[in-house]
């Protein structure tokens, strides 16, 4: 039990959860066939907002985390309004620039403490440990491990909640509109779907959740600086999503978990990690642009479930 619950393993779980949310935020814009390269910027906005609100305004942590996400979404409007009405790569370029600008601002503003970053951000583990100290005493776990354990649990619940939310959304009217916009913008527009509205919506969702991921990062690492939200973060998030499978929701969590755990096991290769990531992106695009989990793979996997006691042919008919 102790071996599983040591701080290191819990840390990896925490990072996996945050990376899953980040990868999902990349996936959300891909849902409408756009690409956002500003996820690190939105993460940074969320992280600094939440950190400053808890440290200087004394806001409770959950409220600050949500406000961090909302702040990121509000800032996303600046980039989104001019770009979502255009076709093509404009969103990618503008968000790329946005990420750079946020980094420069964070380096130069007084409230973000420049290149030194913010330290002493209220820790989620400590807060949870204090809250549940009675329960932890009964279970005979010390407050620190208990706090970390609870933090993992909270993060897992958040991840599951986001996945559940997006799954529900994908099966709603909105999700079908997203899919239509992704498949063919012209056809979607001709079918009466307001494409700008839906492109904007998916982009704002993406920014919101990137902001939440950033806020969670701030309260789990307890220290943030502009270098935490560099271009590399964007490339990593993009790779999580593309590697796992960029066409299905389950691809992002899969990719994020594999690519967070694997580097921990292959410590020797750490200095070549970015090089390998670069090669992986190129190779994935050349040989398997859909990633591990493509739409077909997922369909085959769900088919095999015994609950579907329908004959193969009937099931196919039903799909039509």
């Amino acid at each position, binding site marked *: 039990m102790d071996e599983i619950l040591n701080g290191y393993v819990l840390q990896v779980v925490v990072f996996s959860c945050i990376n899953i949310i980040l990868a999902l935020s990349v996936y959300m814009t*891909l849902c409408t*066939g756009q*690409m956002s390269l500003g996820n690190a910027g939105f993460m940074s906005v969320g992280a600094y907002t939440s950190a400053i609100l808890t440290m200087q305004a004394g806001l409770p942590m959950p409220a600050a985390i949500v406000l961090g996400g909302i702040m990121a979404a509000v800032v996303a409007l*600046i*980039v989104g*309004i*001019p*770009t979502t009405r*255009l*076709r*093509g*790569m*404009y969103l*990618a*370029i*503008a968000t*790329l*620039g*946005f990420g*750079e*600008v946020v980094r*420069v*601002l964070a*380096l*130069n503003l007084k409230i973000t403490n420049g290149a030194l970053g913010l330290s002493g951000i209220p820790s989620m583990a400590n807060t949870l440990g204090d809250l549940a100290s009675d329960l932890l005493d009964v279970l005979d776990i010390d407050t620190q491990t208990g706090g970390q354990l609870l933090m993992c649990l909270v993060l897992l619940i958040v991840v599951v909640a986001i996945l559940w939310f997006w799954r529900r959304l994908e099966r709603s009217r909105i999700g079908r509109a997203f899919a239509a916009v992704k498949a063919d*913008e012209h056809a979607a527009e001709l079918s009466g779907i307001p494409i700008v509205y839906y492109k904007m919506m998916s982009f704002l969702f993406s920014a919101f959740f990137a902001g939440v991921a950033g806020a969670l990062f701030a309260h789990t690492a307890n220290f943030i600086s502009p270098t935490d939200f560099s*271009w*590399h973060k964007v*490339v990593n998030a*993009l790779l999580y999503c*593309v590697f796992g499978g960029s066409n299905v929701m389950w691809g992002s969590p899969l990719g994020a978990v594999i690519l967070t755990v694997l580097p921990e096991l292959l410590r020797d290769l750490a*200095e*070549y990690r*970015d*090089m390998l*990531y*670069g*090669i*992986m*992106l*190129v190779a*994935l*695009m*050349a*040989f398997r*642009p859909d990633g591990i989990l493509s739409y077909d793979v997922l369909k085959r996997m769900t088919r095999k479930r015994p609950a579907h006691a329908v004959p193969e042919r009937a099931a196919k008919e039903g799909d039509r």
Partner: protein
Amino acid sequence: MFFQQLINGLNLGSAYAVIAIGYTLVFGVLNIINMAHGEIFMFGAFIGLMLVTAAGANIFVALIGAMLGGAVLGFLLEYLALRPLRRRKVTHLAPLISTIGVSIFLESLALKIWGPQTQSFPPQFEGALMDAGLFKVSMIQIVGFCTAIVLMVLLTLLLDKTKIGKAVKATSENIETAGLLGINTSRIITFTVMLASSLGAAAGVLVGLSFNAIEPTMGMTMSFKGLAVLIMGGLGNIRGAMMGGFILGIAEVFSVAYGASSYRDAVAFGIIILILFFRPEGLFSKAGKGGRP
């Protein structure tokens, strides 16, 4: 003061223009954004630096060496990262992702080879400072500016007068028609990516000379500036990219001189947002072309 800033702005702008032309050329023939361009620019700067410090070459030899190196990198980029995607049907985002992979690979390779510290050209390349009354200009600024102008003139001549240049223009206008008219479009694409990359590498040497700071992470900042110019000039518009480069250079220098010095990188972003808001087809394009549906 004003003229001094104008000179500095023109000098910076000439480098931006050369970078942006690289994006524009590739966008023209392939309709993609080459995210690895900034890293090829950075490699060009380092190759030039190596030729000067390790081989003792003079600055023009270094420039040509960097351009050759850039062309080789461009060939590899096209052959390994772009060509496989053209063979199969992929989304329009695939080349973007693929070139992002190349860019992160090149950046970490440069970190591995040259280390993270900032390097600079030896001081004798600084040259004398000439006083022209209204402004001062250094020898290296003149060399850099003139080289950029010469490169742009040569490129214009290449595209307008030679057979291969006309083929590039035809391919960027319509790739299928160009193919039907007997142009080997695959070869033209390779040629264009190599040409764009060698221009990017040349810009790397020019920027390395005039700012005396070469580091592996410089590619990212520059690629964003180049993309800002690309949008300003209009996608695929070479003359627009030349003009846009000068506009961005001058705007940045003046915002530093008369405003907040640490926010010069925000100028390019502000320009992107304003342009996309009011004139998404770019400043120098005829209406009807560009991003508006």
